[in-house]
């Protein structure tokens, strides 16, 4: 599990496009940098990110080492009814990090 930060508005009107933000604190080591001891730092990245709203996919992202450290994604979902917005990150070892927030639709 890595630390994450998400930004989901508490409320939205039905039909509204709602901006969503999600960041995971991860170095995204791309395999081309050396540690202070002079050893090559191996590739260590988040490979997959998914956001779901009411169980349906909003975005599904495949990440490569060209994504900057602490990957952050901004996108939008269409509000329909109250329910959870769920986030899932998977790293190259298959370890999963999750976060979620509730969106109330008025």
């Amino acid at each position, binding site marked *: 599990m890595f630390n994450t*930060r998400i*930004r989901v508005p508490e409320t939205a009107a039905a039909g509204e496009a709602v901006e969503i*933000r999600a*960041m995971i*604190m991860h170095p995204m080591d791309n395999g081309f940098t050396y540690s202070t001891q002079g050893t090559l730092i191996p590739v260590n990245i988040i490979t997959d990110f998914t956001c779901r709203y009411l169980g349906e996919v909003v975005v599904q992202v495949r990440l490569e080492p060209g994504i*900057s*450290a*602490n990957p*952050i994604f*901004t996108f939008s979902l269409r509000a329909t009814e109250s329910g959870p917005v769920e986030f899932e990150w998977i790293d190259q070892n298959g370890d999963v990090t999750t976060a979620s927030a509730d969106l109330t639709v008025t």
Partner: protein
Amino acid sequence: MKMQRRTFVASLAALPLAAPALARGAGPRVTVVGAGYGGASFIRTLRRLAPEVEITVIEQTPRFHSCPFSNGVIGGLWDGDRISFEYDGLASTGTRWASGAAVGFDPATREVTLEGGEVVTGDYVLLSPGISLNFAAIDGYSPEAAEAMPHAWQAGSQTGLLRRQLVEMEDGGTVVVAIPRPPFRCPPGPYERISLIAHYLKAAKPASKIIVLDAQDGFSKQGLFEECWAALYPGLIERIPGAESGEVEAVDPATMRVSTAFDDITADVANVIPPQRAGALALDAGLDGGIGWCPVDPVSFESTLAPGVFIIGDAAIMGEMPKSGFSAAQQGSACAAALAARIAGDDPAPRKLINTCYSLAAPDWGFSVADVYAQTADGIAAIRPGGGTTPLGADADTHAAEARYANSWFDTLTSQLWG
């Protein structure tokens, strides 16, 4: 490219014959827009190397306000008079001083239009317009909003405004400093400012704090600043770097709210430094080629987009040379030498340029980055090995010496340019 020593010597040999000012009027006309570090240095050097040239200066401000050392005003180390200079000394070097600001420039005809409607024409034009602030890059920010949330990144009334706000703030207040993505004027400048605000708060308002919302991850002289902050200002400065989404995206001057991707912070004093681009005159004339900063020939500083137009200082892309007043002054004298060679029918010779960029983290705690740059056809590059910053872990005597040298440098250079 051949050396221009022959020309250089020839033009100098002619000097003693040319009684000052008498020979002027016969030579080419050169228009200079902007009499800051770059423009003033250019004027002084060209006057010496090619006294026959007729120089017309266009400057929008009635007095020069230096960005270098303006952080000392904000931190209360000295008052605004120290960074404010009359143009009289520069004007008395035999230049014609046009009245009013430039509002338009046509690179094809090299005509500069002044706000009063007057049109100044020249055989060559030197643009040293500095930066323009990209207010639109931050939601809610504008020139009007900057009256509540000053940027103070162009010295003058904004410098005094930020100082007054700090003085009027109650102890226990929150000062937010927002730093944009690079490139921007003076890479270590925001961190020097944070240091000197911390110096003021520590003595005058010790319950206060500074929150730095930084679009940058690492920054110029980072280790040196952080070493000083840990020693002198522990607990006073909290910084959210770019990699933790420190970049400011929106502000609301009515509520003094400053927002990043994930945080909304209410400030008592908000110093919002927006992203920057080349000065408006160069941008509006398209001399940036759509990329925000002006590409120039690395030896002559002639615009790659407009023959006969030379661009120096913060507005131009100068390879590895940073956007600093020190750099601009060096570019000004090198550009004047290149133009003097051109006028004499010769190629400009590549030079070695210096940038020594001092920062004060406290009145007696200075450090620097110092590099020598080579002008090559491929660009301006720092010469290695050599150059670099004050070493980490330097003793108090070294920091005190560098602070004294910083003060000396400022007084020496400003008196040469505007004295």
